[in-house]
């Protein structure tokens, strides 16, 4: 903390502080001499009052001197400056780092302006305030900070041009790395003063990195944002109680929407603050098909179902829309609905081995939507496997080498193969296979006493089991007479269902873009009662749906630099290009990683529906992360208590920010304070002086003197009013 004076020449008046002393000395010299009858009683009185008078004299001198000093200070315009400023602050040079929150929530509209526009205007004002020699850097706070001008520059025009070229992105923002980047950019400032300006909307989300830290632990190993030379100014330009209603997430049931069958879309709505009841509409290919009332309850998520009428096969652009609110960016939720005709699956095996599986995949009383084809293992090489969504091998081993190659290629291209063992082959027949999760080493008989086995999900989060529901009251138990004993698992393989304690029941391995599943028992009753168990049918259906991509639980993705969209683009040929919502082209790339292929898209920033270039069919839907929709304001008091922000200045409007900046640069004027102190000192001096010269009752009034000169004793009398 330091002081400067707006009128330093007034400090010369401080010499007036010696006036009381001079007056005192002067009065001593100008003495009135009074002859008095005797000094006897004066000496007595003085002896008794000397110490008191000395103390009173000292206090009076002190108060009078202070009074003069306070007056001089008040007129000299003292300004208390914060520690962040240099000694010669009015003439010092400073480096600024402007950090602009570029998240989607900055598009919130407050009155006539969006928060973003307020922030940009505030940044422009700050650039306008740059004085010769001042420099500024510019950062955009997103998920990762984006430096627009990393090294501080004095080129205000460049700064303004860059600033105007920016716009908020459909992204979240994290302020901590952005502030850290700004701090680092100012490290080379030398003796200059440093100021960091963070222009954001006040949403709590970007501050999460700071507030999740335990405040009592201080900053830990983090760098302090503020120090003796760096000052942080924060503009929280958003509304104090922002209102926002938004579709949070959407899903479609059933997972496999078949042509001609009704379905429904389940949409979850989120709310921020208290908003009025509103209506949400569901659109398919820009045609409204349903409308529902949404009655918001703050802090709750409301789920609403929209009916989807029977549709013909194809992909549909699905859109859930709310009326526009202050943050229109998240009022629309995009999705792609894939309506399929019957899914062809191929079951390989001999007829007596296929009885249970064919009836499970295509139960006559409840059409599953699967078109089941069967073939003999010897005829497998003649089949074009790419025509099928899934391949079930039931007691089909051994297979000819040509067939093995075809099956392995099918898996690598994205197909799903399920292997069920049987009596035909022995473990050595699995030797030529290169994509198995594990090579079986023996067929083990199981003791009748140990036959009852309970199936246990080892990987409940596996996409195969998401949404898998067993019939009510059923327990996944089966009786096993024989089982396949597996050797060591391939590094990329994993057991996803266990039989009993640790024995694997179903193994899985991803190969290329596909997957191979290996069951420990056959698909018929020869080794176990698996076909009779209540989860035989749902499990086979889940496998079939998953293998066709219908098992993908998502109908949209969020923006990102590199997104895996294999599940959403399953079955589509390579190469594949997409038309972005704004008309640009986005290529789908195939990525090889650890022997596994995946289809990815890069630098997806635009929200909306992406279509196939050839057919204009909707393929991908990209939605803004709904994290940004939660506009809950940051707790400013908590923020102020945070160790890293105790020396920061917070403003809610650009004008307030400028005032804070000016106040910081100029300082806090203390003239008024000193005037008050002078007044207080004057009052104290008056009180003390009055007390020192207080009137005490005269002896004449105390003396009960009779006219004849007699008095009995000295008793106090009240002085006359």
């Amino acid at each position, binding site marked *: 903390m330091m002081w400067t004076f707006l009128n330093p020449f007034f400090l010369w008046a401080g010499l007036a502080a010696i006036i009381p002393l001079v007056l005192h000395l002067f009065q001593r010299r100008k003495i009135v001499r*009074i002859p*008095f009858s*005797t000094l006897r*009683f004066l000496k007595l009185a003085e002896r008794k009052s000397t110490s008191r008078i000395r103390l009173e004299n000292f206090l009076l001198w002190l108060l009078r001197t202070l009074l003069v000093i306070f007056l001089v200070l008040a007129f000299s315009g003292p300004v208390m400056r914060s520690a962040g400023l240099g000694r010669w602050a009015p003439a010092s040079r400073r480096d600024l780092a402007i950090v602009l929150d570029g998240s989607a929530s900055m598009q919130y509209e407050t009155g006539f302006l969006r928060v973003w526009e307020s922030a940009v205007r505030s940044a422009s004002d700050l650039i306008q305030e740059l004085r010769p020699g001042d420099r500024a850097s510019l950062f955009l706070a997103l998920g990762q900070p984006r430096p627009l001008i990393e090294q501080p520059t004095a080129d205000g025009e460049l700064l303004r041009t860059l600033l105007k070229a920016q716009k908020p992105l459909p992204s979240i923002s994290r302020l901590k790395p952005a502030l850290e980047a700004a701090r680092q950019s100012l490290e080379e400032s030398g003796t200059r003063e440093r100021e960091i300006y963070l222009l954001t909307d006040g949403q709590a989300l970007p501050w999460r990195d700071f507030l999740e830290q335990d405040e009592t632990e201080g900053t830990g190993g983090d760098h302090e944002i503020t120090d003796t030379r760096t000052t942080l100014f924060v503009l929280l330009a958003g509304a104090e109680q922002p209102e926002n209603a938004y579709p949070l997430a959407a899903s479609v049931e059933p997972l496999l929407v078949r042509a001609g069958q009704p379905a429904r879309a389940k949409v979850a709505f989120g709310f921020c603050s208290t908003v009025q009841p509103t209506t949400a509409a569901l659109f398919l290919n820009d045609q409204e098909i349903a409308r529902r009332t949404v009655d918001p309850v703050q802090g709750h998520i409301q789920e609403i179902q929209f009916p989807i009428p029977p549709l013909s096969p194809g992909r549909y652009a699905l859109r859930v829309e709310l009326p526009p609110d202050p943050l229109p960016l998240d009022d629309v939720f995009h999705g792609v609905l894939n309506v399929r005709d019957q899914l062809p699956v191929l079951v390989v095996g001999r007829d007596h081995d296929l009885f249970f599986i064919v009836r499970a995949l295509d139960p006559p009383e409840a059409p599953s939507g699967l078109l089941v084809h069967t073939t003999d293992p010897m005829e497998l090489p003649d089949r074009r496997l790419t025509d099928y969504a899934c391949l079930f091998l039931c007691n089909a081993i051994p297979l000819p080498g040509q067939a093995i190659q075809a099956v392995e290629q099918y898996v690598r291209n994205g197909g799903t193969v399920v292997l069920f063992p049987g009596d035909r082959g022995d473990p050595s027949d699995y030797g030529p296979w290169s994509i198995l999760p594990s090579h079986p080493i023996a067929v083990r008989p199981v003791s009748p006493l140990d036959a009852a086995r309970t199936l246990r999900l080892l990987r409940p989060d596996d996409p195969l089991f998401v949404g898998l529901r067993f019939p009510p009251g059923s327990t996944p138990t089966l009786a096993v007479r024989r089982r396949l004993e597996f050797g060591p698992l391939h590094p990329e393989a994993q057991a996803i269902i266990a039989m009993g304690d640790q024995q694997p029941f179903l193994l899985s391995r991803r190969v290329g873009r596909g997957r191979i599943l290996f069951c420990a028992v056959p698909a018929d009753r020869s080794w176990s009662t698996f076909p009779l168990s209540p989860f035989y049918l749902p499990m086979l259906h889940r496998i079939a749906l998953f293998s066709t991509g219908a098992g993908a639980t998502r109908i949209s993705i969020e923006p990102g630099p590199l997104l895996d969209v294999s599940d959403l683009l399953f079955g589509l040929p390579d190469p594949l290009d997409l038309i972005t919502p704004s008309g640009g082209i986005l290529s789908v790339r195939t990525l090889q990683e650890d022997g596994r292929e995946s289809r990815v898209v890069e630098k997806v920033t635009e929200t909306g529906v992406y279509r196939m270039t050839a057919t204009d069919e909707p393929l991908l839907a990209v939605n803004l992360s709904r994290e940004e929709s939660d506009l809950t304001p940051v707790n400013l008091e908590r923020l102020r208590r945070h160790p890293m922000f105790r020396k920061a200045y917070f403003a809610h409007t650009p004008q307030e920010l400028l005032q804070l900046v000016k106040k910081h640069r100029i300082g806090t004027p203390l003239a008024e304070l000193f005037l008050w102190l002078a007044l207080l000192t004057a009052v104290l001096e008056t009180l003390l002086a009055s007390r020192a010269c207080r009137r005490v009752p005269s002896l004449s009034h105390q003396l009960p003197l009779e006219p*004849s000169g007699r008095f009995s004793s000295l008793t106090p009398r009240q002085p006359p009013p």
Partner: protein
Amino acid sequence: MAGGIARFLTPEQLQRLSRQTLQSRLVVEGNLAGRHRSPLRGASTEFADHRAYIEGDDPRRIDWKVFARSERYFVRRYEDETNLRVYLALDRSASMGYASADRRSKYDYACRLAAAIGYVVVKAKDSIGLCLYSDRPQVFLPARNTLLHLDNLLSVLGDQPPTLGTPTATARTLHEMAESIRKRALIIVFSDLFDDGDSIRQALAHFRKQHHDVILFHVLDPDELDFPFPRGAEFEDMENKERLLVDPRRIAAEYRAAFAQFLESCRKCCVELNIDYRLVRTDQPFDRFLRAYLEERKRLSR
């Protein structure tokens, strides 16, 4: 009227004073017959006692009623009445010359008071004497009962006002007076008593030991009581020229406390010695004070 009396008293005051008397509370010894009680037996109408008849006694004084009862001769004796001898002891030290604004000095006030008392005494055919002193007795006039003597006495008082730098020795003077006045008399002291308290007490006790009746007029200026000076000044002692710089407002409370203690000690001392102590303020009319005092004294002496 002679010059000395006229200097201090106006005819109207003299006229008012002519009706006043000064009574001694104790027996006194005079050399003339008067109306004051004497320790001797005399020819008054106040019966004192009997004594055996001796040859040469006037037979008219034999108490025949006693003879009838006892068949022995006794003569009746009566109390003697004598005149009063009053001595004025007046302090003319420098401190008695102090006078606050628009007031008489203490000395002047004491002189007027002495003149009035002298006039009352002489008018009653009593004698009045004077001892004027500062650090030592300077004038001693024996007691006479003539107006001429009073006039001379007052002329002496008027001609010798206090002079600055004159110290006081009240106690020593009173001792000397007590030694020199052999017969019982009324001693009236006019002083501000700015002397050592114990010494004054001993001197007053000396008077009482000699069976003198003592009146002490403690003459003070109101400023000495209240110390009402408004601003700081250097005060100079009128007797020893000592100087002291003080702010009167700052020490007024302590001054008044000390002075009150002084007055109280004087009063207590006089009460213990059966001395008539009166505090006289120079701001009160002296004739009114004297009238009140004499009437009270007359009332108490009955």
